[in-house]
């Protein structure tokens, strides 16, 4: 109940943030601009529209999660409103989870609107609603949920600028960590290889949520990966939130 109340307030607060609308504007511009890019191509225009549209949803969604998420907890501390909140019978874990769910709700609404624009543009070209695109959008949203958790984790102990940089680094690492697999295959067994293997296992693999290529090209997606990727996202998010709660519990505001 308390978590719901915090989430509701966070949602209202995020709704008033101009950054959100600015990013939404650019996302819409990106999705709509895909049509102009498609004109420049020779061949399949719809492919370009789908590629650029999905990339816009993903990129601007991540920016929303990072830019809003990293300020959420910090603002409460900076404006001293945290004292009022924590003086109530409210656990710090509830506060963190409330903030997280509030932002997730905001991102859900934003993703929904971006997807509607995207699907409308695709529909204007193909004259059919391509449900498969929603699979890609769904997993983009799961990625946004994880990035939100990361933004809140950093926000719980750092300034918004540093938190944004850390969260952005997390996002980049998440999309490049697959390269460690290539290095692993070339390494001789030993401590170095064990260390790289550990890093490979622990570092986020955001490519697990990337079904854009398969969806755009109509490639079959192995059914098993839906569940494992979903559970991977849920568990990683739970881990990051747990870490955020642990860090936030140890903070002394006085």
């Amino acid at each position: 109940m308390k978590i719901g109340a915090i989430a509701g307030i966070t949602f209202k607060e995020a709704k008033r943030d101009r950054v959100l609308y600015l990013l939404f504007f650019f996302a819409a511009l990106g999705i709509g601009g895909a049509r102009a890019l498609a004109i420049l191509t020779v061949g399949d225009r719809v492919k370009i529209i789908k590629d650029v549209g999905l990339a816009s949803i993903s990129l601007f969604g991540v920016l929303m999660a990072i830019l809003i998420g990293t300020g959420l907890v910090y603002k409460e501390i900076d404006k001293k409103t945290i004292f009022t909140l924590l003086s109530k019978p409210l656990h710090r874990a509830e506060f963190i989870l409330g903030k997280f769910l509030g932002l997730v709700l905001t991102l859900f609404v934003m993703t929904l609107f971006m997807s509607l624009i995207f699907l409308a543009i695709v529909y204007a070209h193909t004259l059919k609603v391509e449900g498969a695109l929603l699979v890609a959008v769904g997993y983009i949203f799961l990625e946004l949920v994880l990035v939100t958790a990361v933004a809140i984790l950093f926000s719980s102990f750092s300034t918004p600028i540093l938190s944004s940089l850390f969260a952005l680094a997390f996002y980049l690492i998440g999309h490049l960590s697959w390269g460690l697999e290539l290095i692993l295959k070339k390494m001789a067994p030993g401590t170095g290889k064990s260390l790289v293997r550990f890093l490979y296992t622990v570092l986020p693999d955001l490519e697990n949520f990337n079904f854009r290529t398969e969806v755009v090209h109509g490639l079959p997606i192995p059914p098993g990966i839906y569940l494992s990727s979903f559970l991977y996202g849920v568990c990683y998010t739970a881990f990051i939130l747990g870490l955020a709660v642990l860090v936030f519990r140890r903070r002394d505001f006085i």
Partner: protein
Amino acid sequence: MTKTSSAKKGATTLLLIAFLMGTAAAFMALKGATDRVAREKLPGSSIIYIPSGKFLKYATFGYRAVAADAIYLWAIQYYSTPTIDDRFDHLDHIFAIINELDPRYQDPYEVGALIAVEEARNPAAAFSILDRGATNNPDQWVYPFNAGHVALMTLKDYPLAEKYFDQCMKIPGAPEFVERLRANAIFKKGDLQTSWETWLDIYKKAPDERTKKIASNHLYNVKATIDAAAVEDAAAKYRERFGRLPADLETLRRTGFLREVPKDMDGEDYLYDPATGTVKTVTSPWRR
């Protein structure tokens, strides 16, 4: 803080740590499980979206050379990973990007061409990379030289090899042996007259005894090839008229099919095989 609340806080922390360990173990196990699911890939999909170097160089904010280094390092890893079946599909495109970002960076031209020939079995890509190297570095003889070598040894395209060696020789600093390679390409092309003239020129201009000896051996070989062709032609005509091959070369001269019995450059007789109508030298041209 009371003892009870302190104990409660400690228990909650322990619970939280246990939760963290549980979720960490879960996501690590799930990562392994997800990795094991084979996902379908488009040919070359991992690199298909890499833009052209012309556009990329504006996005490097002045760090063009570093970007070239990074892509080159990545390319080496990428092309030495045999599990990527379609890794050679965009080989020329990838090296074109590196070349565009840093046109004076020499290694990518040579290594790219090597990968194209030896790994990708795609001489056309090798020529494209080496031609780019020659255009961007007109003072470097090594690119037309390497291209000539690929044409001569891999493609067996002797006119193309001659063209590249000719281009190489015109660049100051090109080693003198390139002229010998060019002469060899002309010989293999079948232009025996030009080959003779080229080797003779090399012989006359030879700066040392070793080069003179090499040229001499080739001249010996060119003459033997010309003579062998004349003899074999005469033997074929003899068979046309008499229904059998001549017993020896003297018979060919006596019957007017040869003006005279040819001798090799050392004045030795050729060895004639009456069963096949062919001749060969007594000694190998390379062991004189």
